[in-house]
């Protein structure tokens, strides 16, 4: 509707008019021609709800809040721990304090493929891990033809040990491997939150970042991209075991296996080598490792018994297996048999403690 009014004041692009009805109004200045004070102009009456703009603002704010609220609620149990799994695909799982997976994300392209195929949100961590391993097997990231390495890291956000026990994670990995008829080197290592931060910064998974760090310490050069390489291939290329690489870095873990089992366990993680060391890489790696004098005994212990690690928990179903393995490896080298004795002694001690 057209309205008329006398221009009373001009201010920038708008002017104040007085309408015949006695209303003072601020309206946009008509673009055509020169409009002066005192001139009568016609202008369009504003249509629609007068407070439409306010409504719109309010509504959009409301929407933002609703969505934000929803998002927030979804995240309400805040992640207390992060687990990364590296096979070749790298996956990170955010875990709540109750052990449930909040979210999973792929850290490289293969990881994204895997995570897009499965649903880990809301699962308990072991279940989620199992799902991932199974999917990896289905996608032939893990197969019997190659040296399988599963590297998992776990970061507790606030330093406290949450309701996640590595053992059950290990169990989940092992179980799904067994059902698929595969064997793999399994490494589960707790890491400091700072390491994770660093890893995020450099854009690789925590596990790979850790590898990078350790290898740098040992001045081992990795050819190719650490972020994308299959860990098994990497191992083969370097003729070394990732377990060794990662395991022998803690310093104060040499003693107290029996007494401070829990502590050490938390600190060290689980290191399990492949059972069927079909390739010569691992023994080779062992050799290099053994050659070093400054390595504490118990570390070697962890390595030479195919499946076991020094500070590993008693895997409930694994006792028999362990024994047989011990027998297998017993004859390999001299010093290894020594180690074995020592180790079994330690085990006894532990049993005694229990």
């Amino acid at each position, binding site marked *: 509707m057209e309205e008329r009014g006398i221009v009373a*004041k001009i201010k920038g692009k708008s002017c104040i008019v007085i309408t015949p009805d006695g209303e003072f109004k601020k309206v946009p200045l008509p673009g055509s021609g020169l409009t002066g004070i005192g001139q009568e102009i016609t202008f369009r009456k504003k249509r629609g709800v007068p407070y439409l703009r306010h409504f719109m603002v309010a509504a959009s704010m409301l929407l933002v809040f609703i969505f934000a609220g929803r998002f927030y609620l979804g995240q309400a149990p805040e992640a207390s721990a992060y687990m990364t799994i590296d096979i070749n695909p790298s996956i990170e799982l955010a875990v709540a304090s109750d052990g449930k997976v909040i979210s999973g994300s792929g850290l490289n392209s293969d990881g994204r493929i895997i995570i897009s195929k499965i649903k880990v949100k809301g699962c308990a961590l072991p279940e989620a891990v199992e799902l991932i391993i199974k999917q990896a097997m289905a996608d032939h990231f893990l197969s019997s033809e190659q040296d399988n390495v599963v590297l998992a890291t776990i970061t507790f956000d606030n330093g406290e040990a949450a309701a996640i026990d590595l053992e059950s994670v290990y169990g989940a990995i092992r179980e799904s491997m067994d059902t698929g008829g595969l064997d793999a080197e399994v490494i589960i290592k707790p890491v400091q939150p700072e390491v994770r931060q660093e890893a995020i910064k450099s854009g690789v998974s925590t596990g790979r970042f850790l590898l990078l760090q350790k290898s740098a310490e040992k001045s081992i050069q990795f050819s190719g991209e650490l972020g994308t390489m299959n860990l098994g291939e990497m191992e083969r290329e370097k003729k070394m075991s990732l377990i060794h690489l990662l395991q022998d870095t803690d310093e104060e873990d040499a003693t107290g296996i029996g007494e401070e089992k829990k502590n050490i366990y938390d600190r060290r993680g689980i290191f399990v080598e492949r059972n069927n060391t079909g390739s010569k890489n691992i023994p080779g790696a062992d050799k290099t490792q053994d050659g070093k004098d400054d390595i504490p005994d118990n570390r070697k212990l962890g390595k030479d018994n195919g499946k076991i690690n020094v500070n590993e928990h008693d895997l409930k179903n694994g006792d028999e297996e362990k024994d047989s393995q011990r027998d297998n490896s017993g004859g390999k080298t001299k010093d290894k048999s020594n180690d074995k004795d020592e180790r079994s002694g330690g085990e006894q001690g532990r049993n005694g403690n229990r």
Partner: protein
Amino acid sequence: MHPVQVEENIRKIKEGDRLLREDFLENNKTFIHKIACKFTRRLLEWGRDDELAVALMALDEAIDRFRADAGVPFPAYARIVILSRLTDHRRRENRSASVEVPLPQQGDESSSAEFSKAWEVYLLETAAREREEEIKEFAELLNGYGVSFEDLVKCSPRHRDTRRSLMLAAAELTKRENLLKEFRVKKKLPLMELENCTGISRKTLERGRKYIIAISLLISRQNDFLHMSSYLRLPVQG
């Protein structure tokens, strides 16, 4: 000279109401007097000064020449005509002006289309200039009361009825000499009295305070703000 009444009266006079014409001229003698005094810058007296007679004739002429569709309210129109005539008169008196610029005389308008066109242009230009000056003067006046146009935009009531009642309150204020005087001196509205005599709630009055100020100023000084007060459909006074 109230705008709404005026236009109605002019229409009737033009239709041939002789009596009303007499009445109208008689009633507007003060209006003429003011304009003429302002023009000559001295106090004129009826029956003594020619200027008043000239102005009265000019008003009579303005009635005939006035066209409502020109976009200029009658009082403003009349003033332009009166001032033109007074100018003519002064020139004739002084004999300083060698060329007269007379308005086209009644009845011979048809003789010179060009002339009437020029007059039209002159009229509109003058009216526009006057309007501008008026508004500026009004703004200054408002400023004296601490009111700006921006304030009026903010507080002028959206609803027509509310505006109407505030206008009535303003009219009421101007009608009462004592209140108007108080208002002009203190530059503050006598809200209490207004509330009593209009029956409009204090809250409404308070909210439209600045609006009432503006409208009462406009009404009380109608003769200075001919264009604006005619343009606004102010409530009938008295």
